[in-house]
Structure formats: C-alpha cells, structure tokens
C-alpha cells in the first residue's frame, strides 16, 4: 500500500510538459535551460569539480551558447553520455546541443542526421612510449605490442598506419582508456595510443611523466566539434555562430575582461562593432538580440582564454595550441566573418 502511494505521488509530481517540436530555440527559451550533451568525464574537456560544478573546454561552449540564448551561462543542464549513447540522446530530443569530443565524420553527418558546428578542437591520433625504449619515431615501432581500445576509430587508424608503413605490431585489446593506462604502466604493452589530447592528459597524470615520450607522428584527423539535430537550421546557425564568435573574439583581441568596455559604444574596428552588436543587427538574423556574442564572451571568455584555462600549457593537461592556433599564428582556426 505504502509503495503504491509512493508511485502515485511520484507520477503526480513528475513534470509532464508539452512543447512544440521543431523550434529548439523556442523550447530552450520556454524551458529556461539548455540541455547540453557532454561526456561522463574527459579530462580538461568536461568533468565536475570538487563542488559538483561542471567545467572544461567543451563545457565552456555549452555555457557560451546558454549565455547567448538565455543570458546566463549557468542555465545549462548537463546530460552526461557515453560514446555509445551520445547521438541517440541528441536525436531523441533529450539534449539540445552536443559538445562531447566528437569527431566530425561523413557518416555521422549524413547517416546519423546530425548537423556539425564549426570544429572547436583539431585533434589526431598519436603514440606514447616509455623513453627507456629509445624510440624516436612511430615508424621504429616494428614488432611492438600496442594497447588498443576495441571498436574505436583508433583501432582502425592503427591498422591502417602499420599496414601502410609495412611494419608489424602485436595488438593487446582492452575495453576502456583506464584499462589501457593500467596495462601500459604495468608493462603489458609497449605503446599507448589515443587522440593526442588524451595522450597529453594521460601522461600528465603519471607519477613520472618524464619517463614517457609522445612520438611526433599524428596518424589521423580528428576534427572535434559540436553538433545539433538535423532539420532545425536556425538552431544550427546559433550554435555555429556562437563558436565562430568565440574564435573571432580571440582574433580581434576581445577578452572576457575588456568586452564590456568595448561593447559600450562603437569603436574604430568595424568587425568588433559587428561582433558586439554596436553596428548592424546580426543577432536578429539568428533569432537573438544584438548582445548575443557579448554575453557568450562574458560568460567564458574568448576561444584562447577558454583553451588556456582548461587544457592550455599552464594546466595539468598542458596542450600546446598547435593546429588550434589562430590562422594568423600558424594554426588553422579561421572563423567566418560576421557581416
């Protein structure tokens, strides 16, 4: 009896809300909260801190979108997903937007009916070996045993690389990244391989990071970016231009610190004026007001600030900008102009 009442009361209290389907923007505004699909934990990209507040590079993009749309970077509900569930959660409508270390591929774009946002991190698969092995290049790895996570693109890339270079390897199949780390540290495989960002953070967590080297070869392209459901172009535009705005802000020297000052009145640089809404009316083109980019930058800073705070050289992850530098600085970040 007690139990039946419990069920009834739970059923009564649980919210059963009805909302329109296509216009994600209206849904998000009505809900007052952005449902952002993130991972269940990837170092530097998304993880809860000691007090339970999510932080990380991917998380910053969620907050920027929330700030642009709802005016507050804290109005985000994070939906943690595993690699298997991420697209189902997005496509079933449980999440509005996805920032989850996700490689943009043709099949995901076309077959899984996603629309990808601009790339926010250019990654690629690399190798780590103990420095005692004395290996300087991945091409010297003939006959090495390699810990591979089964069922990943990592596994396929690895097979391709060794076949093309006509060298052999001995696979040690493992299930998770944590298992791979344990096996590697225990000496059961000579080589640890995953995306370069993952290699760096894994190495940083070792007791003696100096005893391991990351080899120079990057053997695959892993452009990581956000994604939304296909079929809601306005919502995709919002995601796309928020990412572009953060990248452009760095290029234009707009930071979390100076953005409020710059947005007070139109300045000498037209592209900054257009970004911050002091010239033209670009916000309304994507269904937002003129201060959308201002709020996004105020919430998380520009691309470079977020990078430095979460995964940059001064953090435990210690990633260099590399490919992810602005095009002016030798990288390939190149935000489409806001005009």
């Amino acid at each position, binding site marked *: *009896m*007690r*139990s*039946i*009442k*419990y*069920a009834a*009361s*739970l*059923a009564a*209290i*649980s*919210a*059963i*809300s*009805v*909302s*329109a*389907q296509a216009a994600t923007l209206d849904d998000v505004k009505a809900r007052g909260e952005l449902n952002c699909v993130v*991972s*269940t*934990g*990837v*170092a*530097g990209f*998304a*993880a*809860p*801190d*000691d*007090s*339970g507040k999510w932080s990380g590079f991917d998380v910053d993009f969620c907050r920027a979108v929330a700030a642009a749309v709802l005016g507050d970077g804290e109005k985000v*509900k994070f*939906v*943690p*997903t*595993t690699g*298997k*569930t991420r697209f*189902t*959660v997005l496509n*079933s*409508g*449980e999440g509005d937007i996805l920032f989850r270390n996700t490689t943009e591929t043709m099949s995901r774009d076309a077959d899984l009916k996603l629309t990808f946002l601009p790339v926010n991190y250019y990654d690629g698969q690399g190798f780590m070996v103990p420095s005692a092995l004395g290996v300087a290049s991945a091409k010297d790895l003939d006959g090495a045993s390699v810990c591979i996570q089964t069922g990943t693109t990592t596994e396929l890339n690895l097979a391709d690389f060794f076949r093309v270079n006509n060298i052999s390897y001995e696979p040690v199949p493992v299930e998770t990244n*944590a298992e791979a*780390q344990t096996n590697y540290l225990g000496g059961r495989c000579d080589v640890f391989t995953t995306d370069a960002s993952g290699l760096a*953070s*894994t190495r*940083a*967590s*070792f*007791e003696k990071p100096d005893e391991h080297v990351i080899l120079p070869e990057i053997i695959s392209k892993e452009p990581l970016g956000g994604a939304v459901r296909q079929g809601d172009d306005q919502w995709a535009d919002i995601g796309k231009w928020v990412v572009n705005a953060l990248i452009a802000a760095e290029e234009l020297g707009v930071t979390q610190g100076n953005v409020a000052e710059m947005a007070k009145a139109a300045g000498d640089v037209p592209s900054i004026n257009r970004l911050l809404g002091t010239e033209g009316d670009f916000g309304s083109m994507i269904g937002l007001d003129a201060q959308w980019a201002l709020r996004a930058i105020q919430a998380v800073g520009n691309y470079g600030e977020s990078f430095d705070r979460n995964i940059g050289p001064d*953090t*435990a*992850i210690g990633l260099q900008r590399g490919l992810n530098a602005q095009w002016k600085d030798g990288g390939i970040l190149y935000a489409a102009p806001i005009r």
Partner: protein
Amino acid sequence: MSTPEQKYAPGTHPDLPPPFASTGPIKWIRENLFSSPANVTMTFLAIYALYLILPGAFSWAFSDATFVAEDRNECRALNSGACWAFIAQRWQLFTFGFYPPDERWRVVLAFVLLILVVIALLWENCPARKPLLILACVFPFLATWLLLGGFGLEKVSTDQFGGFMLTIVIGVTGIALSLPIGILLALGRQSNLPIIKYACVAFIEFIRGVPLITLLFVASTMLSYFLPPGTNFNLLLRVLIMVTLFASAYMAEVIRGGLQAIPKGQTEAADAMGLKYWQSMRLIVLPQALKISIPGIVNTFIGLYKDTTLVIVIGLLDPLGIGQASLADTKWQGLSSEVYLFVAIFFFISCFAMARYSLYLERKLDTGYKR
C-alpha cells in the same frame, strides 16, 4: 602420603576443570586450523598469503596514505600510499550528486526518516513502534516532497540527483514496489483464469528475457520516439518504473518457487474451512510461501540494489558514475583504486546489512521447516 582426592567420599568429588588444551581458543585453533596434516598445510599457506598481502595493503591504505591535500600532486609529494584526500574533498559530491548545497539538509532529513521507518517496519520490539508505523504510511509522500520540493520548499529537479542518494532512491523504491507486484504476478501466473495467467506469463518471460541495460536504454531514449511529440516525462521516473518492473518479474518467479513448495492440502483445507481465495492466500498460503522464499527474495533485492549502477548508461550519475566523472578532473586523474574501493565499501555495507537481516528473519520465523 595423602592426596587431596582422598578427602572426598566416593562420588562427591567436584568436577575438575577440563584439560587446558581442550577449552577456549586453544581448542578452537586445534579443531579448526590444525586438525589434520592437510589443514595444517592450508593454515600455514593462508598465514603466508596474509603476510604477503596485509602489510602492503595496510601501509597503502593507512600508514602511507594522505588524508588532507588539495590535489593529486600534493598527495604524491606528501606520501606514497592512497590519496584519501580525493574522497575527503568529494564526499559531498559522492553522497548528494548535484543536489543544491543549501538544500541538502532535506536529503539528510529524508534519509534519517527512512532509517527510522525501516527500523520500525523490520524490528518488532522497536520503541515507539506505533507512531513510527504511522510515519511509514506518510513517508513516501513526505520523502517525495522533501526531495523534489514544492509547497514551500525550493523545487529541485531530479536530474540533480546523484551519488549514493540516487542509489538509495532507486534501490528503496524498487525494493518496496517489486515485492507486492511480484506477489501479484506469482499468484496471477498460477491463476485458473486464462487471461490473467497468460498476461502474467507473457510479462514475466518478456522482462526476464531482456537485459536490464536494454530496458533502461529503451526508457531513456526509445520512449521519446514512441510517445507523442513533445511529451517529456521525467527520466528518473522512467528508470524507477523499469527497475521495478525488472525486479518484479524476478521476484514473481522466486515467490512462485515458494508457492509450489506449499502442499495442495493446505489450499484444500482452506477451501474446506470456507475461506475465499484472497483469505486463503493471505492467511494460509502466502505466510508459508514467503517464509520459504526469504533467501531468494533478499537475493533479488541485493541484485536490484547493485543493478542501480547501470543507470550510468543513460546519463544518471550514481556513485560509480560520479567516480568516473571525478577521475576525469585534472586535479585527481588516475586515482581509480581509491574511488572503486570507496564505492565498494558503501555497497558492501548496504548489501551485507540486507543479508544479515534476512538471516535474522529466517531464524525468527523458523517454526519447524528448517533442515
């Protein structure tokens, strides 16, 4: 020469204490550890194994461990063993998940009430049992109100639930609901009414034929495709329903086992007394059947309780999920042993308590069938 024995008349000598080696710990050790050459070998092997394992484990977990630190590097600098500072910094996250910090007293209050109610329900000689049983009747509403808010309390959405609190919410709800539903299903399966019988059989066989993880996945994602567009019903509620249905199907089979052990003469006697179906079930059959089924029932409860860790696949962060997410924090990366040990201890305590209670209950209800 005289000996003390001669002081007593024949047959009046007081009992002498038993020989030293056949009492107390010495006797126990001789009988249990050194009773045969094989046992002697095993004992020494076991002592040697403990000697190998214990000192290392002890120094890792206690003497070399760090209890206060800000991050893992500080732990490393301070000592070489376990970094319990990680757990110390995050126990709130492990306990309450993302529940708003200012409102956590509500979770604590609900938990204290739960403990009181459980004690009153499970222990006959509990002081002030009557008022507590009345509390038990309103507890489900009270707990729901405390946890979810509304009516004067700040509302808290269920996606902020997490950690041990989430495990307990799912576990307790599943346990409390699956027993009555399981009993009904078991009775239904034995019913003479074909529709009821086949409905119950179909339900039980379908649910048992599908892994829980699949049901959870259906609950979290597929349901959105089946329901009318825009319908959105609470994820935690869906999980509670799925977990309860899953446990009920297993429970039904456990109870059916108990029902089959009751001789047909019992029901026939009940019929002869003029008892109706529900009367004979309530007064004659079920008390006996449930008593026999206690080990199986508790087994299912424990299984259900541990299965709650599967909710991580649908994005709810139970203690293991919180642990996994915490390990991705750059401050604490790589401390998996500490996390898993901590979570394991929590589950062990809960499950062991359930197992002990079931033993106590079996002893209490032992009225002549025990072999």
